[in-house]
């Protein structure tokens, strides 16, 4: 069987269908041999055989063909603390660590233990798991660790009293989880399985009989949910994240049709149960906006009617300034979505569509299949849950740039006005009063560096993806220099909008990675960046700079970037172009980099 065929079959399976998932696990061997995309190690204290099998299946859904190392039963410390272990010989780039509350139950503090003793017990258990992560990191510095938290057990010998004392078994587990979050390092990502188990219901999640018989940490029925929680993380690590939600208006943001009822009569009264449901949904959307998700509107309405509630209905939580792009017209929604994507300069595959009308959803599914379409329930009371549980905005990190991005989209209107009054483009750029800054990567910018490097698709010369662990490793290596470019103009502060990885070897410097946010295209930032890269190469006194463009599905916009900048094209194949810039030309080229911005130090 071809991988693609296998993948198509997996895509049709619901995560709740554990029987089909286990069947697909057995068919894994039938996939035609192909190179593995990644190596994943799975280690845990309970039985992990079936977890490994289903994880491999679900990763295929995300286009990942993984070689997976399966740790021994209860073998975490054997694998991790023996530097000669088969686990290290395998050399995974991702490790999943699955502890179980039954491993630590005996280490809970004594009844009536005081605060200090409880802290000690918590610290000692959390410390052990931190040591596991640190040891893996030391031995495999490029490895990204996904650590499950402890699922807090159902039973507590103290009964309801357990909720009153820090020394109780349930509070102990909870504190260990908090301690793990508190001291989390960038190479560790926590996966909240406790929350998953709680959502399913812990009396269903745990099956003691299955634990006694097979050391299964949870009931077999939920293996799909469990593995999906991890598989999703890989998707985000590989740069596939969604960042914009396109919203319908009538019966989505409020009840009723504004064109018929008028802005005052739409159902949005906090004293009405249905009105409250819509308000609750708007509040959730506002929280999404506040974490950096772009809100856009796409409604079949007259523009004036559609905007009126935002301007005049005082129960509206969302205001016009929260909406980055407002499309209200009578065109079909598929075309409108394409317009929104173009205007916001984002890919269709980074968009989510939320509309109460099943016909519109079907249309979007068919004509813009890249967009994730949410299955919207009939009752608005459940809109939040449907959106939340679709896990469409699973990102790897949150950065200050995410929060500011929304503002910069809004300021685009002001920029457009400025452009109107300028005679030419250069004058416009001058009047933007841009200030730019070139910095070595720092503790403050490392999360944004990782995000931009892994999320950028269009202005990305080589489309290499790096885990946080790999970035940390390069950051501390003499052979690499990692830089960020930050930009602000008279309207907004964009923060870090470009990232560069320079790799120094023998006598030359290689531009290993170069990405830029599409929000700042055509602002001469790339010229500034090239200028600074040459400067960095000069300081290290290398003879030449080598650069490369690798074609991907989405980066054709930079296919001639190096030619335009004046690098010498030395080889060219269908998918790849290699360039050279020798020392003698450094100075001449720098002079050509006429960027229109002030450098801030």
């Amino acid at each position, binding site marked *: 069987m071809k991988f693609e065929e296998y993948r198509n079959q997996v895509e049709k399976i619901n995560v709740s269908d*554990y*029987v089909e998932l*286990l*069947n697909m696990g*057995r*068919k894994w061997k039938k996939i035609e041999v192909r190179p593995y995309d990644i190596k994943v190690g799975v280690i845990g204290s309970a039985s992990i*055989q*079936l977890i490994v099998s289903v994880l491999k299946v679900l990763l295929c859904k995300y286009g990942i063909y993984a070689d997976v190392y399966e740790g021994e039963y209860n073998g975490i410390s054997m694998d991790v603390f023996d530097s000669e272990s088969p686990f290290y010989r395998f050399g995974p780039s991702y490790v999943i660590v699955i502890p179980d509350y039954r491993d630590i139950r005996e280490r809970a503090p004594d009844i009536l233990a005081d605060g200090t003793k409880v802290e000690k017990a918590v610290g000692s258990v959390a410390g052990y798991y931190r040591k596991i992560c640190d040891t893996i990191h030391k031995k495999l510095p490029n490895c990204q660790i996904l650590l499950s938290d402890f699922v807090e057990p159902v039973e507590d010998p103290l009964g309801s009293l357990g909720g009153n004392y820090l020394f109780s078994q349930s509070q102990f587990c909870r504190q260990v989880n908090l301690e793990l979050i508190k001291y989390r390092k960038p190479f560790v990502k926590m996966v909240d399985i406790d929350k998953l188990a709680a959502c399913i219901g812990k009396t269903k999640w745990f099956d003691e*009989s*299955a634990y*006694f*018989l*097979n050391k*299964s940490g949870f*009931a*077999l*029925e939920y293996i799909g949910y469990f593995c999906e929680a991890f598989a999703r993380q890989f998707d985000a690590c590989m740069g596939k994240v969604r960042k914009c939600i396109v919203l319908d208006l009538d019966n989505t943001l409020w009840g009723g049709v504004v064109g018929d009822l008028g802005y005052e009569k739409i159902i949005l009264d906090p004293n009405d149960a249905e009105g409250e449901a819509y308000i609750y949904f708007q509040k959730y959307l506002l929280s999404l906006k506040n974490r950096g998700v772009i809100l856009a509107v796409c409604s079949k309405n007259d523009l004036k009617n559609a905007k009126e509630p935002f301007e005049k209905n005082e129960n509206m939580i969302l205001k016009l300034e929260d909406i980055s792009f407002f499309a209200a017209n009578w065109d079909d929604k598929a075309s409108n979505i394409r317009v929104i994507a173009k205007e916001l300069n984002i890919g269709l595959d980074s968009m989510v569509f939320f509309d109460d009308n099943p016909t519109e959803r079907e249309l979007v599914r068919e004509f813009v299949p890249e967009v994730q379409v949410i299955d919207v329930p009939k009752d608005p009371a459940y809109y939040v849950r449907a959106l939340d549980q679709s896990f469409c905005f699973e990102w790897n990190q949150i950065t200050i740039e995410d929060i500011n991005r929304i503002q910069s989209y809004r300021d685009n209107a002001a920029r457009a006005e400025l452009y109107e009054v300028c005679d030419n483009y250069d004058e416009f750029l001058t009047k933007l009063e841009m200030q730019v800054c070139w910095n070595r990567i720092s503790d403050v910018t490392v999360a944004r560096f990782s995000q931009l490097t892994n999320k950028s698709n269009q202005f990305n010369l080589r489309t290499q993806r790096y885990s946080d662990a790999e970035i940390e490793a390069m950051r501390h290596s003499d052979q690499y220099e990692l830089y960020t470019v930050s930009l602000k103009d008279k309207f907004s502060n964009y923060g870090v909008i470009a990232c560069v990885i320079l790799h120094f070897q023998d006598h030359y410097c290689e531009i290993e990675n170069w990405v830029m946010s599409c929000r700042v295209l055509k602002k001469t930032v790339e010229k500034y960046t090239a200028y600074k890269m040459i400067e960095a190469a000069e300081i290290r006194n290398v003879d030449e700079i080598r650069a490369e463009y690798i074609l991907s599905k989405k980066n054709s916009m930079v296919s001639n970037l190096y030619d335009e900048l004046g690098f010498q094209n030395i080889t060219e194949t269908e998918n790849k172009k290699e360039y050279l810039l020798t020392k003698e030309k450094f100075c001449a080229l720098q002079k050509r980099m006429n960027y229109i911005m002030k450098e801030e130090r």
Partner: protein
Amino acid sequence: MDIMNEVQEIFRKVFDDDGLIISSRTTADDIEDWDSLTHMQLIVMLEKHYKIKFTTAEIKKAANVGELIEIILQKI
């Protein structure tokens, strides 16, 4: 459909073998993939299908198809 046929359907699903024939004397030795893990899957599927729950002792003890069916019959 009699119970042997129903159970056989479940076995076929778990072992992904549409031609699999079982009898009451079939044991784990007769089916290559019947190990502790597939045993667990069999149990979960039988429990779902007949809306019953096996006890830990029953799961541990049941050595062949006949014994499994006997336990099911006691419960439905």
